[in-house]
């Protein structure tokens, strides 16, 4: 045990500091594959003051801190592999205040996303940021990655729901940003710098989130499409005719992995190359009739082959599992995950080129397509062939990245739509952002964290 470590444990005993092998392994990694956890220790602050104390200690001793939420991140943002001190927000899990008038809820950063959703529902309200990892991801992590999810189409990103926050900078300063005001035209809104900063500008300790009214009764359709062009043509039609809250898609290969789990049944007997999942407002028969019209018109136009519609909320939930279980069902196959986006209008062309590229250069890999296609976001997962070593596969994925991100750049898209950059995507930042922008980001980072103790090595590429 290093002398430093010797002193950390007693020093932060009150914050539950530990360094047993199990804890180091657990708290040193997130949901991204290929990470090698090697933290110094883990601490569990209980309030903003504790966090300030940790930052001051880290500055004095030159220790790096890794803010750690629910560790569901997919880009290695919460990975600690260089003897960092992991700051877990797990114990900061209290709901501080509920404001029915705003309506808004103020929570500690470690509150689980689903807890906010449930709380809102119990008040007859709705917190719309939602995705498959809501049961374990934390509000702090959502804010730090500006998480998106399945309802972005109607409700936007986490950014759109953050009314205020308390954050501790790399110099131990406590900033209370925006004080939950709706209107506040008083200079630069630093809150928005914090959102999506992946723990590099400050440690978020409290967040005020806006809430809204729940949507009316809804239904879910899953429709089978012959190709991606038709998935997008169907989107244009559905968006026009129905009040959508989600438009997702997945490939038949993705579906097969979910079905192999043995817990779901296919939507209908015939299998099609792609499926669109549409969630829309459906309060009465006339809404359902409009959905039927969309279906029959798209059937005629050759956009869809077959389709089902939920008749109960349980069925809607069951249909959602076909989409939401994909990520978990393929995770043991160590997929190389891509989370890319282009403007929706350019998607059909982009997807065609992407498909051709993968076919031409990487026919040996199984490619799983799914994503929030209604907002231009595609999750492209390339599976490691069982007989390939991790090393060989990693090497190959570097070449895939170069190819795929080159195409993303050509289409002025994003190489990370909602999963952040973390460790895995940071070196490709210049495919989405200009050198001038990256340089400004570096300078901003220095302003907030002059000693470089906040999540070093994450988000930005090393300067050349």
């Amino acid at each position, binding site marked *: 045990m290093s002398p430093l470590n010797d002193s950390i444990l007693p020093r932060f005993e009150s914050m*539950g500091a530990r360094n047993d092998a199990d804890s180091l392994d657990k708290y040193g990694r997130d949901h991204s594959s290929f990470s090698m956890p090697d933290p110094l220790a883990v601490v569990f602050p209980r309030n903003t003051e504790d966090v300030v104390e940790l930052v001051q200690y880290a500055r004095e001793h030159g220790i790096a801190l890794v803010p750690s939420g629910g560790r569901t991140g997919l880009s290695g943002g919460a990975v600690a592999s260089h003897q960092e001190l992991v700051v877990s927000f797990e114990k900061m899990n209290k709901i501080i205040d509920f404001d029915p008038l705003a309506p808004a809820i103020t929570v500690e950063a470690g509150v689980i996303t689903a807890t906010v959703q449930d709380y809102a*529902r*119990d008040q007859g309200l709705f917190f719309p940021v939602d995705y498959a990892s809501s049961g374990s991801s934390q509000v702090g992590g959502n804010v730090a990655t500006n998480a998106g999810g399945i309802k972005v189409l109607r409700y936007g990103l986490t950014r759109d729901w953050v009314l205020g926050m308390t954050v501790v900078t790399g110099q131990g300063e406590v900033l209370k940003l925006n004080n939950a005001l709706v209107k506040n035209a008083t200079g630069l809104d630093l809150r928005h710098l914090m959102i999506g900063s992946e723990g590099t500008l400050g440690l978020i300790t409290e967040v005020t989130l806006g809430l809204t009214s729940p949507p*009316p*009764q809804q239904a879910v*359709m*899953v*429709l089978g499409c012959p190709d991606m062009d038709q998935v997008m043509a169907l989107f244009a039609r559905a968006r026009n005719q129905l009040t959508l809250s989600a438009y997702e898609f997945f490939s038949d290969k993705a579906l097969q992995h979910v079905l192999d789990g043995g817990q779901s*049944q296919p*939507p*209908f007997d015939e299998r099609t190359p792609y499926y669109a999942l549409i969630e829309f407002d459906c309060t009465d*028969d006339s809404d*359902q009739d409009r*959905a*039927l019209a969309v*279906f*029959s018109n798209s*059937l005629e136009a050759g956009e869809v082959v*077959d*389709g*089902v*519609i*939920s*008749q*109960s*909320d*349980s*069925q*809607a*939930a*069951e*249909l959602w599992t076909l989409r939401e279980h994909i990520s978990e069902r393929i995770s043991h196959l160590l997929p190389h995950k891509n989370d890319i986006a282009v403007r929706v209008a350019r998607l059909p062309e982009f997807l065609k080129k992407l498909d051709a590229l993968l076919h031409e250069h990487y026919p040996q890999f199984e490619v799983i397509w799914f994503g929030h296609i209604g907002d231009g976001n595609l999750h492209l997962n390339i599976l490691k062939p069982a007989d390939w070593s991790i090393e060989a596969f990693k090497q190959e994925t570097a070449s895939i990245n170069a190819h795929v991100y080159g195409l993303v750049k050509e289409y002025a898209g994003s190489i990370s739509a909602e999963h952040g950059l973390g460790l895995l995507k940071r070196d490709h930042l210049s495919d989405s952002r200009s050198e001038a922008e990256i340089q400004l980001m570096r300078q901003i980072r220095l302003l907030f964290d002059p000693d470089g103790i906040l999540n070093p090595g994450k988000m930005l590429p090393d300067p050349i």
Partner: protein
Amino acid sequence: MKILVCLKQVIDYQVRVQVNPDATGVVTDGVKMSINPFDEIALEEALRLREAGKATEVVAVSIGNASVKTQLRTGLAMGADRALHILSETAIDPLTAARVLLKIVEHEAPGLVIMGKQAIDDDCNQTGQMLAALWDRPQATFASELLVDGQTARVTREVDAGLETIEVDLPAVVTTDLRLNTPRFVKLPDIMKAKRKPLDESPIDSYGIEAANAAQALNYAQPPERKKGVMVDSISELVEAMKQRGVL
């Protein structure tokens, strides 16, 4: 053989049910209504029997106000051949439902009646048994497997001690348990087709039966809130906590 399937409209299983302000019932305004899940399983089983050539016609019946037509249409879209709506503005109790169903059964003469073991709203678990008694025919409740062979049905029942297999002569009443099958999704083209299938309505009093409720609800209350669980950090803490509570 004709199969009669009973579909009850209930508040959707996923809805968080709320007691109304004066505690005389639960809030149903703007709340999603669906087919009772056990009844959905009953219909699925009937459709599978028809698809396997064991039945020739599946008739769905529901007793309730005008809105239950939505659930009957869903039943038709799933594949029922026709539907009967017994219009009753007021809620009825299991015995009244069984009496009405007896009239239907006498008229339709089905070889098999399949219905849910209970409805998830009142959890009575009575109507199937009462119908069998009134009709004076065998009953096989809590079915997790149903095999029809000529004039008999072999039914595996989920009982406290495990599984029990019995054989009953048809016609009979079978009530379904959760594991009997997984109901299919409804295809969009089938919803359109269902609009053209016969859905006959008749008022409950045309059967000479008054909509009645022998039991009177005195009060409704939200269940007490569950105590929040505690998270423990390690197996040893778990063992310690269990010891403290005397469960270990």
